[in-house]
């Protein structure tokens, strides 16, 4: 299983029946594949869908029906379409049980930096700030380190923030960690990894409740 699939599968396990969820850009296609097909969950897409389904099978695309990343999804029974103001009213109004976002950096206090690298990467803001600030539960799905092997999970973000103190949980290919009032807590370790590796590759103090009974995924 690729690291992307590993993350997507673990992310999918966060979703509970009856919830309203936004999967961010990129993750939807992969994560949807790991949801039980009969699970009653409503996937929200910023461009005006509640009840998005899996990616279309090749040849069944509808030119009027895309997701927020430009892909062509199916919709589920009971889906609805609405305008961009209503779509973000769902987000800012607190009707999203959880949102998933990728990131460049995330801090031990739950600060998120995922939208700009000044002078290098500035594609804009999109829906990320609103998802980060207003989803009832924000789950970050990311590789544990950068391509250069440097930690993405830091004491403090070095890049301009998307939102402060917004992250609830971080899911990487190596671990599941929670941001708590007392600090960053290790919750699960990938079966391919170890507590030692996770701690070594995390750029912030990581609390390890009980190394011997650490759940794996």
């Amino acid at each position, binding site marked *: 299983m690729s690291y992307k699939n590993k993350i997507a599968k673990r992310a999918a396990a966060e979703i509970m*029946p*009856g919830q*309203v969820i936004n999967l961010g850009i990129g993750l939807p296609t992969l994560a949807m594949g790991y949801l039980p097909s*009969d699970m*009653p969950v*409503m996937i*929200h897409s910023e461009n005006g869908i*509640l*009840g998005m389904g899996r990616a279309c099978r090749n040849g069944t695309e509808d030119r009027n029906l895309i997701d927020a990343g430009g892909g062509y999804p199916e*919709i*589920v*029974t*009971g*889906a*609805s*379409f*609405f305008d961009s*103001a*209503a779509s*973000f*009213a*769902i*987000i*800012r*109004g*607190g*009707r999203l049980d959880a949102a998933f976002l990728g990131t460049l950096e995330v801090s031990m206090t739950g600060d998120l930096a995922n939208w700009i690298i000044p002078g290098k990467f500035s594609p804009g803001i999109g829906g990320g700030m609103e998802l980060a600030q*207003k989803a009832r539960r924000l789950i970050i799905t990311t590789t544990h380190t950068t391509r250069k092997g440097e930690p993405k999970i830091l004491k403090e973000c070095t890049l301009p923030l998307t939102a402060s103190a917004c992250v609830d949980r971080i899911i990487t290919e190596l671990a599941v960690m929670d941001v708590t009032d007392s600090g960053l807590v290790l919750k699960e370790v990938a079966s391919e990894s170890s507590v030692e590796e996770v701690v070594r590759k995390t750029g912030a103090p990581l609390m390890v409740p009980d190394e011997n009974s650490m759940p794996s995924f």
Partner: protein
Amino acid sequence: MSKIDKTTTPAAAAGLVKEGSAVMVGGFGVPGTPFILLDALLEQKTANLTLIKNEANEAGMGISRVIEAGFCRKLVTSHLGLNSKVIGMMNDGQIEVRFHPQGILAEKIRAGGAGLAGILTDIGIDTIISEGKTRVDVNGVTVMVEEALHADVALIHAAKADRMGNLVYEKTARNFNPLMATAAETVIAEVEEIVETGSISPDAIHTPGAFVDHIVEIENLTEEYGVLQSHVIQE
């Protein structure tokens, strides 16, 4: 997906309104007023309510009955022109009434639902309703802060729902209902008809199910829902 089913009873729904709750109530006149939910609310005698509604219906109807029974402490509304009973209670100090321009009331509710802190407007700026309101300069023009409104519970009325809570309103029974559907912690919709999920076109849904927590099917449309003979032109 068909497993989501939000249907409940009027009594169970009304039970979600607690003493002291702020309750938004849909409707503009008879159309869109959730009479069955209001009957259930009245029956459980929940007191000390803040009611938020365009008007107070007419005497003996809808929220006027809740107000007349003494269960409403404060009313946030636009006008009471057709309800001299409630105007009398206001003048006698039996209830506190806060008036807003009708469209500003709508925007304050919508702002609450849209997760905004408020809106900026010049409506009423040269009038006594501007007293006490924060003023802000926007591009050299002075405008006022109108804070977002929220409620504990919204009681609304729709023509049709599916089991997942997707709603469709009919004609002028729409009014404040879709706005209130977004602005309360718990949203309860009474509906004239429940259809199977998937039978309403996704483009024709007025309120997406994500906003709606509970649905109550109206078993029979009581007389209150009918044409008000006092407003019919006698030829």
